[in-house]
């Protein structure tokens, strides 16, 4: 099976040697990326090279959608316009009360000596394409680190939390959706303030609420919002609705399935929120004190 030319033709190293070289190189890259995330710099270089090609391939899709929107009926536009006007009116009312709430909140926080919660600025971005890797749930957006999109920032749409920026290239960024298998969001039940963590399942439209005791006070239809204790997601963003609860006393935890609040598959636009102000460092002085105490006891 091995293809070997006669020895008097010089053709460099043998096929197997060449394969071993490139396979070994790939394995080293894989290990460095999966285990230590060393490859981000090289990845960025490839990302910059691929960016123009990506832009070229977006043209046919944009053309099709452009032609499609050109032939939209007038009646449809009229209905849509009416609906948006009504919604705008309702939102305006809500916004007016919200302005007051924001002012009141700031005042109360000042009185209590607490820090501001929201950082300045957020970026609206368009979804370029869905990640083609079948093992993860990711989307690519058209704003990157040159538009101040930072790694780790939260991403929302008009109905709820979409995910988190996992990698920022100069002009594009990768967003890990909350349905990704490796994503975890600390949440809170709106009805009773119960805190929990929502895990992605790797499938569209389902999330798991894990490690909740069988008798936990959770009902179908409960709204889960971000709890804000992680320092990554701002508090109060809608994350999911509880859709199914299985309480089996044979297991220590209940099986709770939720549906995400955000509709990533429905819209083309998302908003990247600015990163939160870093939380105060975790107190690490405790063990030192203990050692000192022990020392003083021994001295005394």
């Amino acid at each position, binding site marked *: 099976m091995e293809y070997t030319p006669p020895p008097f033709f010089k053709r460099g190293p043998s096929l197997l040697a*060449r394969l071993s*070289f490139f396979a070994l190189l*790939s*394995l080293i890259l894989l290990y460095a990326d999966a285990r230590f995330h060393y*490859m981000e710099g090289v990845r960025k270089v490839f990302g910059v090279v*691929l960016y123009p090609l990506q832009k070229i*391939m977006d043209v046919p899709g944009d053309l099709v959608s452009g032609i499609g929107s050109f032939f939209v009926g007038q009646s449809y536009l009229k209905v849509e316009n009416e609906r948006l006007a009504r919604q705008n009116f309702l939102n305006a009312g809500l916004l007016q009360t919200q302005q007051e709430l924001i002012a009141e909140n700031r005042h109360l926080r000042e009185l209590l000596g607490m820090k501001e919660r929201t950082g300045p600025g957020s970026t609206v971005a368009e979804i370029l394409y869905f*990640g*083609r890797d079948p093992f993860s749930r990711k989307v690519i957006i058209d704003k990157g680190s040159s538009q101040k999109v930072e790694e780790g920032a939260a991403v929302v749409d008009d109905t709820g939390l979409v995910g988190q920026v996992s990698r920022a290239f100069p002009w594009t960024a990768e967003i890990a959706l909350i349905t990704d298998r490796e994503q975890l969001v600390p949440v809170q039940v709106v009805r009773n303030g119960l805190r929990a963590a929502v895990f992605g399942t790797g499938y569209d439209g389902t999330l798991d609420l894990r490690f909740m005791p069988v008798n936990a006070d959770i009902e179908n239809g409960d709204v889960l919002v971000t709890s804000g204790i992680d320092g990554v997601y701002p508090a109060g963003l809608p994350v999911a609705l509880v859709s199914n609860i299985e309480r089996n006393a044979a297991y220590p935890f209940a099986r709770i399935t939720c549906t995400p609040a955000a509709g990533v598959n429905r819209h083309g636009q998302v908003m990247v929120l600015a990163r939160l102000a870093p939380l105060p460092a975790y107190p690490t002085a405790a063990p030192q004190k203990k050692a000192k105490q022990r020392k003083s006891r021994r001295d005394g």
Partner: protein
Amino acid sequence: MRSSGFGYLSTEEILLPVKPAYVALTLLIALLLNLMPLTGWLLVLRPDFVALTLLYWGIHQPRKIGFLPAWLLGLAMDVADASLFGQHALAYSVMMFGAIALHRRVAMFGVRHQMLHVVVILLLMQLIVLVVRLAAGGEYPGWWYFIPSIVGALLWPATRLLFSIPLRSRRDPDEV
């Protein structure tokens, strides 16, 4: 599909010599096709055009293509797909090995039997990606994960035809 009489020698027709620029152009077009922003069923059905093109050149012109283009294109696909860095590079390298090692054997067969070789090599390529991802803590996505290999093998006759069109001799050999 065998040419009359000399079927045991080779079924390949005699084509013009291949220029490296032509190989590079086909690879660039394949990369562009792989970068198409697709979703849903189209994405599941989409064959890996880069793999198919590399396989074509590996089998038909093993001297004009080596491991380096396959490896670099693999890295490019890893960045574009937002997957682990190096998984496609490894898979394409092994696929290139299969193509070059088998190129004499594959050329002996007709198109339908070539398709059987191609589907096995493409499935092996996807299997490597799957093993890498399972080792890195991924989950088996489902049987549909292997559909692109089957679609790719079904496109093999079209690929052969398409790639050989610019390499056909313009002059009629029977002309005096």
